[in-house]
């Protein structure tokens, strides 16, 4: 067991990793903050009245989290493909399992917590500003009605990712638990895929990972489309409303299939492949 995991060794690894990469990570956080901050300002400038709807806040959270997490993970193991850094990394006296756990620690919980904090740091004033703009608009539109306020002003709320997510009121709404979990699993799996790409591809790892993902998805999509077109999909999956339209059937089926695969552990499969690649990596 000591050969695979030792807490004191793991702790040393986590701290030494932080010592080595803290500047890089802090720069990443600052860059991410800057992009999200200016993105928020752009949305407010375009139309501040609707900028903080709950749907948009959820959509922004998921989009920004998945994108930034993929970028972060997509460079995390690039050391393995650099001769000098790879030698130092492999020869550090810890087990490959500990190195892998350290990778997971930084790319999943640490990244998620830091991202969520950043999101709220921007989201709270963003919602307040949007409410201010909405309220000014409300006052202006009602001032023409000689003080007759027909409807009450309803400010937007800052979304809560962990408490206020709605129950299954609307299956296709982004604000449901179902949607949150689906985005979460999709995000984790994509992160795992980008992490795997960073370990596998020697040069231009990030671009090659994106291209390979597109190739795989294209193959999968065409395959699914042909399956649906030729009625090879189990009946219960095909929605009756769209059974006459193979393309639309395929679209829904593909969405369901992707989410299902991500949920059952496509991400775990990518992580396992990454672990064994790290274990067998020769430099």
């Amino acid at each position: 067991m000591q050969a695979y995991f030792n807490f004191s060794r793991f702790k040393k690894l986590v701290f030494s990793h932080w010592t080595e990469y803290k500047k890089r990570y802090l720069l990443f956080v600052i860059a991410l903050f800057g992009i999200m901050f200016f993105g928020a300002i752009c949305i407010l400038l375009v139309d501040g009245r609707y900028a903080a709807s709950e749907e948009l806040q959820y959509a922004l959270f998921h989009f920004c989290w998945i994108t930034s997490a993929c970028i972060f993970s997509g460079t995390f193991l690039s050391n393995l493909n650099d001769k000098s850094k790879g030698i130092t990394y492999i020869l550090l006296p810890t087990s490959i399992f500990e190195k892998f756990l350290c990778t997971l620690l930084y790319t999943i919980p640490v990244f998620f917590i830091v991202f969520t904090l950043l999101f709220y740091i921007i989201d709270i004033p963003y919602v307040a500003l949007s409410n201010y703009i909405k309220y000014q608009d409300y006052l202006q539109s009602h001032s023409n009605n000689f003080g007759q306020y027909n409807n009450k002003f309803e400010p937007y709320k800052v979304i809560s990712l962990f408490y206020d997510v709605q129950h299954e009121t609307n299956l296709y709404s982004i604000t449901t638990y179902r949607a949150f979990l689906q985005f979460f699993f999709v995000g984790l799996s994509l992160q795992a895929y980008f992490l795997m790409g960073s370990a596998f591809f020697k040069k231009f790892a990030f671009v090659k990972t994106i291209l390979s993902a597109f190739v795989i998805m294209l193959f999968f999509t065409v395959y699914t489309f042909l399956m649906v077109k030729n009625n090879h999909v189990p009946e219960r999956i095909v929605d009756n409303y769209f059974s006459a339209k193979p393309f639309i059937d395929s679209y829904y089926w593909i969405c369901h299939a992707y989410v299902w695969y991500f949920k059952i552990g496509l991400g775990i499969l990518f992580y396992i492949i990454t672990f064994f690649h790290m274990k067998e990596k020769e430099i």
Partner: protein
Amino acid sequence: MIQLHQVCFSYGNKKVYDSFTMSLQKGSIYGLLGKNGTGKSTFLKLLAGLIFPDKGTISVGAFSPKNRHPDFFKDIYLIPEEFNLPDVKIDALLKYYAPFYPKFDKMKFDYYIKEFEVPIQHTFSQMSLGQKKKAIISFGLSCNTSLLLMDEPTNGLDIISKAQFKQVMKHTHNPEQCIIVSTHQAKDLESLITRVCIIDEQGMILDKNVEEIIHKLQFKFSQDAEEIERAAYVEDYMNHTKLIILPIHTPVLDNKLDLEMLFKAVVTNKQFIQQHLQ
């Protein structure tokens, strides 16, 4: 301490080692010499577990390097030709990396850093290549690992630093440690190593103690026609003739190993040298 048994290794179609067998003992400083592409760095990487043999077994102490056991890594340090140091100051390196090596000696490290004149107030990104190299050599030597591998340690060092390196290495003798230094700069190793290993395309063509070599071969300048006639190796050197001859009377006084000459002699007149060193 180190055993390689019938090791085969190739990079794609290019065979580097074919059924290579060798053993290395602790308490020695091995000088590993060879032409470009003969597998010196590969040899070090195989011992460190960075690459795996296609066939055969390697054991370092109780470990097989390819298992990459953390306890194995604790007791081995490789100073690669191209190395990477985190962009931190030396005290951060000590604080976060030295604890991985249980036999790390802080006093030794301070001595080496002082001897090498490495600026401790700078981060590694602010240091020159030579300064960084001296820092990593100091760190590697202070780890006191049972196996210390150095790949071209004097590359990037200036003349003064090379002298400092020799000075520092002279103080590192540890009967429990095996040091393997791979280099093209044979002159830098002459006074340091206790055993010479020469590799060529066929594998290890020479593996002898320095004492044994200087006992059996004489390195000298000479204009004597008879000596030149029976020399194992002859080289013109600034209007003089450098020779390697078989001494008539042994032991030979004031006989100093000339690694560069020995290397050239082994490469050009392999059978003769091997036969007489048997």
